[in-house]
């Protein structure tokens, strides 16, 4: 009889170890996905000054649109510095949504200047911008998927016993609330450099 008990204990310990490791793995994946967002946001922020410089000369009278982009960008940079998956995701998401909206307005304006669009430099920048928006979106998608499975796993029954030991915490998802932000990819598609 006692060896049955022993087997049960050993099985429980083995399960506990693998569950613990599984949670730690998910936590690591989540943090890694967050890092990926960070990298792509930084790329987005770094690209904007180049874009502004390229279009500034030709659209001097669109100062308002340009100012809005610069302002939204600087604010997003500030907020990004202190955001973590366990706090500040909502604020960062809102700031990035504002930036995305400002950028899409700029993109619409650029479309109205055929001579500006004709220069290869702008075409390249637009492709970079499209790609950057996509990268941010896909990094966000990966983060949300990973974070969701992390959140669900640590609340499910047997794992919830281990969650405290693995220092698992519920992380915030990057949710899109702004309608304008949802519309960003649609605007970006117009910049396809297609033959």
């Amino acid at each position: 009889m006692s060896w049955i008990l022993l087997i049960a204990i050993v099985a429980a310990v083995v399960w506990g170890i693998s569950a613990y490791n599984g949670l730690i793995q998910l936590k690591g994946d989540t943090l890694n996905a967050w890092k990926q967002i960070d990298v792509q946001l930084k790329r987005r922020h770094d690209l904007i000054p180049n874009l502004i410089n390229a279009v500034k000369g030709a659209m001097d009278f669109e100062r308002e649109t340009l100012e809005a982009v610069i302002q939204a960008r600087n604010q997003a940079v500030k907020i990004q510095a202190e955001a973590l998956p366990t706090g500040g995701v909502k604020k960062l998401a809102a700031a990035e949504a504002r930036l995305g909206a400002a950028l899409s307005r700029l993109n619409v304006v650029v479309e109205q200047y055929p001579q500006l669009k004709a220069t290869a430099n702008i075409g390249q920048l637009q492709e970079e911008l499209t790609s950057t928006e996509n990268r941010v979106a896909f990094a966000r998608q990966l983060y949300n998927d990973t974070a969701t499975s992390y959140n669900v796993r640590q609340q499910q029954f047997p794992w919830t016993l281990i969650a405290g030991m693995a220092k698992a915490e519920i992380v915030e998802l990057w949710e899109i609330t702004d309608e304008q932000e949802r519309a960003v990819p649609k605007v970006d598609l117009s910049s396809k450099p297609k033959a």
Partner: protein
Amino acid sequence: MNRRRSAVLVGIFLLFFAWIGFGGDYIFYLSTMPAAAPAASSGSRTPYHHTFPWFGVGATLLAVGMAWYSWRNGPKQVLWASGAWELVQATKPEEQQLVNVVEEMAIASGLPRPKLWIVPDNDPNAFSTGTDERHAHIAVTEGLLTTLSRDELQAVVAHELAHVKNYDVKLMTLLAALVGVLALISDGTWRFLGRGGGRVLRGRSSGGGRKGGGGLVVILLVLWLISVLLAPIVSRLLALAVSRKREFLADASSAQFTRNPAALAAALRKIEDASAPTTAIQRGSAHLCIADPLGRRINAKQGFVADMFGTHPPMAVRIARLKAMAYQYDKTGVLPETV
């Protein structure tokens, strides 16, 4: 669903391989069982007793060796044979777009960025190869870059990255090695029988038959011989079935990465319409491509024959499944797990 089905198929394949290898050993073990009376075999030499499964161990080692060899050299050979050149620094706008799209899909799939190759061929097609996710290669033809829109290119790249993420390159390399070994075994058996080896076997098993339990051995032996002779066909069909299941799986994963199944459907339609064979891509790497590069009519057809012999599922079925996925995604906002 596709994942489980292909796992079952691989299991059947491995069982079949084990039956050819170790099943043969077991039958020889039974049929060379030393008889109770020492006079069972004439002559002074002691009769051979097959106790160690040389056959199975040998076949397994051979398969592992072949898999290892083609795994080490396969990616290089496939790329070299297609005449692809590596895209290191993009110069043209469409190359830059390709680099960007690959980067985006690497982010979406959570994989490291693969190496990029361009195949100088006007037919739109793409394939992936590589040993693991850190040493993955994606090759696209020039025709693909000029034919597809940005979204469609993204979907195709996602399909290829899905092959990397699902370990399809490893799996198909292993299966190809097993098919090769089985073909060798079968060939050897044919020759053995042709040289009159069959009489030896028959003599032996009937010799053991008198000692009891021989009927079973004879039946097993006949079954085994039949399966050995049929092994090349059976194993190839199994490998093709696995290949088709992995193709559906890669389509589904592509939609998972892009959240845009309609783009892949549109890309497949365009690739299908440009139905000239992709001459740069060889027969051996056909299963790695997004569409059959040989332009064989068989992959276009539905029905029994196409179900058995195609490397890819019929294009119409793939497109229909992706469209169903897109429809469901539009309606519910949730992407179905499988096509």
